[in-house]
């Protein structure tokens, strides 16, 4: 589904943010992308989404290698079709939910995709019902709690029917109850999922596979069970065992 082939990327030539990164993610997999601050997790997400690198068509950036999404190479010409396959949940839901109500936010992407309002509202109802969030439909974004907002942000992305869901720190700044709600919701989603987080317990609860990045390179790639229990590996890469294993 997603393939990084020897990808190197730099905002300035000579200062690579990620170097020779290669991995493949198959349909239906749930992959945790972990690493210390500055390891390159966000950059991997950004170039995959075409917000930087070859898909962005931004001059001055250095890129080498190849990124494929469902067989399509990430290029400016393909990026609109690629983005239809990828849904991205931002870390800060306030930046994701820029319309006044949950309903309008969910309609934004659907109307952009050419649906009529009637069709779009039907889709919104379907998604909200499947996530058990119908109560939020007409609520103002600034009046819902952090957990509800995070779930609503997931709903806005799911409404676009992405094949792959990318989530940046989905449980950050959530209380334990809402964190649990989000984890349950993630586990019930049918899409291929890529999750970046420092919350290794959440990664353990949601991901079957983990890719560990360090200094822009892949330091380890394997089953979550194996990597998240390897204290030596984690410590060597400025990480720690998940709390449950400490």
């Amino acid at each position: 589904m997603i393939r990084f082939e020897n990808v190197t990327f730099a905002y300035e030539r000579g200062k690579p943010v990620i170097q020779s990164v290669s991995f493949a993610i198959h349909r239906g997999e749930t992959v945790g992308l972990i690493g210390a601050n500055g390891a390159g997790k966000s950059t991997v997400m950004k170039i995959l989404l075409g917000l930087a690198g070859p898909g962005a068509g931004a001059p001055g950036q250095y890129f080498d290698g190849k990124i494929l999404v469902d067989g399509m190479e990430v290029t400016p010409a393909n990026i609109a079709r690629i983005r239809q396959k990828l849904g991205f949940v931002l870390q800060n839901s306030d930046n994701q939910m820029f319309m006044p109500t949950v309903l309008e936010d969910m309609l934004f992407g659907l109307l952009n995709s050419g649906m009529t309002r009637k069709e779009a509202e039907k889709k919104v109802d379907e998604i909200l019902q499947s996530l058990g969030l119908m109560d939020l439909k007409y609520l103002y974004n600034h009046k819902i709690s952090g957990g509800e907002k995070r779930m609503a942000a997931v709903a806005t992305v799911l409404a676009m029917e992405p094949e792959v869901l990318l989530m940046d720190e989905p449980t950050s700044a959530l209380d334990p109850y809402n964190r649990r709600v989000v984890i349950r919701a993630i586990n019930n989603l049918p899409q291929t999922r890529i999750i970046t987080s420092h919350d290794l317990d959440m990664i353990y609860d949601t991901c079957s596979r983990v890719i560990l990045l360090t200094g822009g390179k892949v330091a380890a790639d394997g089953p979550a069970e194996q990597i998240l229990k390897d204290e030596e590996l984690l410590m060597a890469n400025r990480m720690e065992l998940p709390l449950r294993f400490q």
Partner: protein
Amino acid sequence: MSRTIDQSIHDLREMDELASKASPIHAICAAAKLLVTVAYIMIVVSYDKYNMSGLLFMVFYPAVLFAVSEVPVTTCLYKLRFVLPLVCAVGVLNPFLDRTPALTAGSFVVTTGMISMVTLMTKGVFCLMASFLLMATTRIEAVCSVLRKIHVPSFLVTLLLLTYRYAAVMAEEVGVMTNAYSLRAPGQKGIHYSAWGSFLGQLLLRSMDRAEELYSSMLLRGYRGEFYYTEERAWSAKDAVYAAGWILFFIAARGVNLTRLIGMLVTR
């Protein structure tokens, strides 16, 4: 967060809530309301500076809208508290510049300067009230949708919409920064002028960061430079009657001095 910033955020969001009420005025389509508001402002502005009695009748429009839309007048006056003094200051020099006596009440001489001052102030207040009522009874998305229909450039409309939407987020950032500053400058009132430069610089950087994230979020959900406003609705007969009714009323009120006419009928 300081009370002033908190209050500003609340004020901004309160407009959204007012605009989402379900009164008969809220149900009118945005294009009709925008048309009536523009017509009202044009007619009000066109009154002669000494025609105070004629202008008075134009209070009928905001009065009816306040009553029917259930938007409290006090909220309007409160929200316009910073602008109203500026509007009122427009004609404040007229009584000194134009001292021609117009009428006398006992020993008190009312000059044409005084009349023109009051007329100008009234015009300003009426226009502000009409604009406020438009925004308090119409969602910003609906207003933007109409602006696009009349071919206002997309980037200007999007700028208006996002500025409106993100003014509260910006205010929150200011609040966070003000708190961080005041915690390290106890006993100091406000922000010292020596810190204004770095404060504004930081605010700009933070705004750019958030703007970039927001733009990414829009791009990823199919945004291609044009908002598809969710409030679009075609004109109905009710909207046409609303617009035509008010515009005819404004023209009639402008053509005939209704206040004087009523006065004559009462005193006859």
